[in-house]
């Protein structure tokens, strides 16, 4: 499907100095914001997307990938030092990282997190590069009927896996689809639900919805927690022993099976929509502890605990792009944000991307591999500095982040109308989160909404409105049956959980 010349051209694009500088900038920014409790790579990506408008597609996407990868490394810093993960993904890292920091070995803990994170990430990137093109060939054989069935399956999995209630997952997905229907309908191009605002004729602006839901709503929540108290600087203990400031090769190599297990868990879970890196990290941690000869040492500063959590949560990032690039379905919010960046640059992720934009896809793969090396290099140099970053007060972080969101959305939507939309979705996001509704499902449904409706319309045209024709496609029928089975299974699980 993609010839060797295209692959090599893509990699050479990625390795150009211009692109590498953007990857470097993304990684530095990602590690920095990851180290700040309360910001995290997702919020940073959401804020950064509008600022990539003026860039070519590859540097823009590579920059965002750098932010995402760097953020996972940076997120381990507050987890280790303060027992306050900068990202939810790093929560499992804190279990052994924080005790190690309390023993006066913060640099050893953060360096182990860095090395295992890069190891897991590189593993999953290699899997992504290897399997995505063959999967895309299979995906290209799918027609609109199969795509509709696949999306219904993805929604059923997402709604069941994220959050504590299938019903609330369905409501969040339906709300995302409803919001996506604002604008013109894909068949007749008549206006829908625009309430007289012709700015909405082309639908709600992606940056406004994404930044409002993901960044501003979280900032509002954190502002309410920080209100009346200014974060105090933390004091980092250090034993002064050089061995406690580094990870030796022997220590790293002794964790090789732990990291491999974590990378495999992260890659497998990351390839499935909806299962986030937090779940992968905790699963890897639990399995490592269960298989250890010294399970009692976990939670007291065991390097294997850090290696298990970090290799798994970082492996999810690359694997998340497998459903995105092969099927056009984002498996996580990070992937959904990358989709929005693709769409802003006029590209539709999915199997056709390999055929139409093969050079760009392989450029992205090259940039991802380079981002791993840069992550390692920047982490080695920057960890000492990021340790200081965690002491920055929330007052300046949140006020600056808000101003950046205002400017970013204004640039992306050409004015304050988009900023107003952003604020409306920030409030909606805050209220939904307050009542336990998943913003991840909402955002993914919002992104997929127009394609979902278009595929349904195409399916109806193909079958002349006869829905029984759907069952003549074995793939579609199997996916619909799987959706039904998963819904029933999740319903039973929910009932058991609520009774327990």
């Amino acid at each position: 499907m993609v010839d060797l010349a295209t692959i090599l051209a893509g990699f050479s694009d990625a390795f150009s100095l211009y692109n590498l500088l953007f990857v470097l900038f993304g990684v530095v920014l990602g590690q920095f914001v990851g180290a700040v409790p309360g910001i995290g790579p997702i919020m940073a990506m959401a804020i950064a997307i509008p600022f990539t408008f003026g860039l070519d597609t590859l540097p823009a996407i590579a920059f965002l990938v750098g932010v995402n990868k760097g953020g996972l490394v940076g997120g381990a810093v507050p987890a280790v030092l303060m027992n306050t993960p900068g990202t939810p993904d790093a929560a499992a890292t804190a279990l052994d990282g924080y005790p190690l920091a309390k023993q006066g070995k913060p640099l050893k803990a953060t360096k182990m997190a860095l090395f295992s994170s890069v190891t897991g990430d590189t593993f999953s990137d290699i899997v992504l590069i290897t399997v995505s093109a063959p999967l895309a060939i299979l995906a290209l054989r799918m027609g609109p009927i199969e795509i509709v069935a696949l999306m219904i399956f993805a929604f059923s999995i997402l709604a069941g896996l994220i959050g504590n209630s299938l019903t609330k997952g369905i409501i969040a997905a339906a709300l995302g689809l409803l919001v996506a229907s604002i604008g013109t309908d894909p068949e007749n191009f008549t206006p829908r639900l625009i309430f007289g605002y012709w700015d909405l004729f082309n639908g709600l602006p992606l940056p406004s919805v994404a930044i409002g839901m993901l960044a501003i709503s979280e900032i509002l929540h954190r502002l309410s927690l920080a209100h009346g108290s200014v974060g105090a600087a933390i004091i980092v203990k250090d034993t002064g022993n050089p061995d406690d400031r580094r990870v030796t090769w022997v220590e790293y190599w002794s964790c090789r099976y732990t990291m491999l297990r974590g990378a495999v868990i992260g890659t497998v879970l990351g390839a499935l929509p909806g299962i986030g890196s937090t779940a992968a990290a905790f699963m890897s941690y639990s399995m490592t502890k269960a298989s250890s000869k010294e399970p009692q040492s976990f939670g007291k500063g065991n390097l294997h605990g850090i290696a298990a959590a970090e290799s798994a949560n970082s492996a999810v990032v690359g694997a998340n792009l497998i459903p995105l690039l092969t099927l056009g379905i984002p498996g996580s919010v990070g992937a959904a944000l990358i989709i929005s960046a693709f769409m802003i640059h006029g590209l539709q992720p999915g199997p056709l991307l390999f055929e139409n934009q093969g050079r760009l896809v392989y450029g992205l793969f090259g940039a991802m591999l380079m981002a791993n090396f840069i992550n390692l290099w920047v982490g080695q140099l920057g960890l000492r500095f990021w340790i200081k970053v965690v002491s920055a007060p929330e007052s300046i972080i949140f006020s600056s982040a808000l101003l950046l969101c205002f400017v970013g959305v204004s640039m992306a939507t050409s004015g304050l109308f988009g900023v107003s939309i952003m604020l409306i979705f920030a409030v909606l996001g805050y209220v939904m989160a307050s009542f336990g509704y998943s913003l991840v499902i909402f955002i993914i449904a919002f992104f997929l909404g127009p394609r979902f409706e278009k595929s349904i319309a195409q399916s109806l045209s193909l079958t002349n409105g006869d829905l029984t024709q759907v069952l003549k496609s074995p793939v579609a029928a199997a996916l619909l049956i799987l959706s039904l089975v998963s819904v029933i299974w999740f319903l039973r699980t929910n009932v058991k959980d609520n009774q327990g």
Partner: protein
Amino acid sequence: MTINADRISGAFFCLFGLAMYFFVIPVYVETAEGGSLSPNTMPNIISIIIAISGGILFLKPTKQQLRDPRKMAITGFYVLLLVAGIYAMSRFGFEYVAPVLALAIMWFIGERRPLWLISGVVLMPTAIWFAVTQLLGRGLP
């Protein structure tokens, strides 16, 4: 029947779905001839799903706890501050409003240290102005 967060949100979504189906969509979605999918089909189906799911949630709630109402009220205050900020930006521009908005947010959080206040009120807006207008060549709101 005890009142919990899921009962409140379930009732809301049930009513919301019904209101969308019976009142909002018929008025705000134009009808069109032809095509395999009418413009109002998807919104109608989604509204029904929301209404039914809301009803189910109302009847079968989980143990969802609501966030602290006091914290939610504080959030409401910050939302009003941002609304005022957007309105002021539409009248006076980002350059004049951003430092005031940053100061207000930092002040309400409880920041009183002059160095951090100066950083947030002067340095950050200046850095944003420089990055957007000088480096990217774009306009500020």
